[in-house]
């Protein structure tokens, strides 16, 4: 049995606009912050994993090392869509579990302020002067906008609408209420890119991006970084009592992709791989969803949050609408979801997201979350999903050391 891995130190930068800082500045701030939080230095790190999705071939890990410490350790530059941060974290966890080292650091960073639509769906389109077949579909012209949408807001809108078709009750107003919750939560998070409370009327009346997602129901493009220092349990036991007390146990670290199912290459199936990851995570951690004190899930759009209540088994199958309407996912409810404000208000600097959500959970488990503390939190779950698809789930437990 590979040994347990713990988070020794973790840090996220303020999310928002950082016009005066470049990617390496932000990543270095998070990395040095995580090391200081852990009470260790780059000298103790045996591995680094780093991600910066928008510049995935630029060797962000080495760039960070050149600023914060070059010790010759292996760097794994990772890219896995919106699961990039979770993948960096898991890469370090796997190295420690494999016995290659007893400490390592994971970093995720992105600069996206003002970026607009992301991915292929955001790139300008034009037809060529001659219809000639190109690509795997033999398309003679642009298909985005002619054969459905390539952009994220509409893709995830359809994900939520499909759930509504299957189970009912998923109205525009319901999705807007989910966004209202997350924006309300964000008012307690000083590191959120946006911490303004919106009324339901403001959310529903805002600019429509892809029905039923209006602008505030979409994740906020912003700048930010997050980093975590991980340690093996045997190494942790040699450190100070204070370090042991503040350390957070990684009870499960799971990464999945979507298994083939009918329709999964037509509309990305973000459900099955999340459900599979959740099952694995609960089994590995030896807990059930009812044991969770808080959940940070991937609300890239309000329509996505709904389906993940179900996929993470926070409610009975098909019961996500009732679960939301019961008030459960509000911070004073029975299963607080996205008390950070979620991606819709905290922001979504892609490669940072899968570490920043772990930071949020750790903050509560350590009892350091200030005004937004979920009292007595002992176990939390952090979930991300990147289209393509990749799903990362980390289950975290308060230290009993």
């Amino acid at each position, binding site marked *: 049995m590979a040994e347990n891995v713990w988070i020794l130190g973790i840090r996220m930068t303020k999310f928002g606009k950082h016009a005066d800082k470049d990617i390496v500045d932000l990543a270095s701030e998070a990395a040095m912050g995580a090391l200081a939080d852990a009470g260790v230095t780059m000298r103790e790190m045996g591995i680094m994993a780093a991600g910066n999705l928008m510049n995935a071939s630029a060797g962000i890990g080495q760039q960070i090392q050149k600023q914060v410490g070059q010790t010759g350790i292996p760097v794994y530059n990772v890219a896995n869509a919106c699961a990039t941060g979770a993948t960096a974290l898991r890469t370090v966890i796997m190295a420690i579990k494999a016995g290659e080292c007893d400490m390592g650091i994971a970093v995720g960073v992105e600069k996206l302020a003002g970026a607009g639509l992301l991915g292929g769906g955001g790139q300008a389109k034009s037809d060529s002067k001659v219809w000639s077949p190109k690509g795997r579909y033999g398309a003679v012209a642009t298909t985005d906008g002619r054969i459905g949408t390539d952009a994220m807001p509409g893709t995830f809108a359809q994900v939520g609408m499909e759930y509504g078709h299957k189970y009912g009750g998923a109205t525009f107003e319901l999705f807007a209420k989910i966004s209202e919750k997350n924006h309300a939560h964000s008012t307690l998070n000083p590191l959120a890119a946006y911490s303004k409370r919106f009324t339901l009327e403001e959310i529903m009346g805002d600019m429509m991006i*892809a*029905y039923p997602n209006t602008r505030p129901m979409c994740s906020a493009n912003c700048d930010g970084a997050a980093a975590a220092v991980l340690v093996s349990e045997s190494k942790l036991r040699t450190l100070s009592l204070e370090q042991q007390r503040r350390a957070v146990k990684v009870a499960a670290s799971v990464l999945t992709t979507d298994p083939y199912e009918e329709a999964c290459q037509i509309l990305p199936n973000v459900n099955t791989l999340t459900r599979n990851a959740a099952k694995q995570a609960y089994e590995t951690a030896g807990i059930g969803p009812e044991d969770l004190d808080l959940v940070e899930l991937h609300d890239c759009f309000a329509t996505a949050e709904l389906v993940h209540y179900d996929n993470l088994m926070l409610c009975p199958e098909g019961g996500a609408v009732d679960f939301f309407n019961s008030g459960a996912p509000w911070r004073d409810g029975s299963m607080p979801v996205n008390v950070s404000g979620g991606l819709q208000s905290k922001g979504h600097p892609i490669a940072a997201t899968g570490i920043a959500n772990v930071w949020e959970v750790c903050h509560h488990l350590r009892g350091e979350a200030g005004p937004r503390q979920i009292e007595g939190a002992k176990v939390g779950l952090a979930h991300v999903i990147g289209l393509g698809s990749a799903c990362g789930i980390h289950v975290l437990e308060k230290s009993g050391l």
Partner: protein
Amino acid sequence: MTDTAAPVQVPLVDYLVLGDQPHLVANECTSCGARFFDRRNACAGCFATSFEKVDIATSGEVRAFTIVTFAAPGVPVPFVSAIVDCGGTSVRANLINVDADPAKLALGMQVSLATYSLGTDDNGTEAIGFGFEPAS
């Protein structure tokens, strides 16, 4: 240019078959029956490498839709993007000949395949696209 006449019409994608009864075709795995619209290397479901062309039903039910009002430059908005269940095979398409108004659209609505012209290119060839319109 050669002196042979260019075809009068070409489909937007190679899985749209034109003619008197336009329809979509899929590559169906001869081993497990999984259906794909793209050029295949192997089956994502069972890894087999043998496929045959199958016709897809030209009518179906809207399983999901969105009205896109903000898109990349060069993509006209609004348009209605949908997932249509055509007799058990999911198809991605626009809903056409409908108002882009949520009050006029419904999950579960019955739709039929329809084609339209994308215009002609510099050689005079006309490209034909497809979408689904409310079933009459």
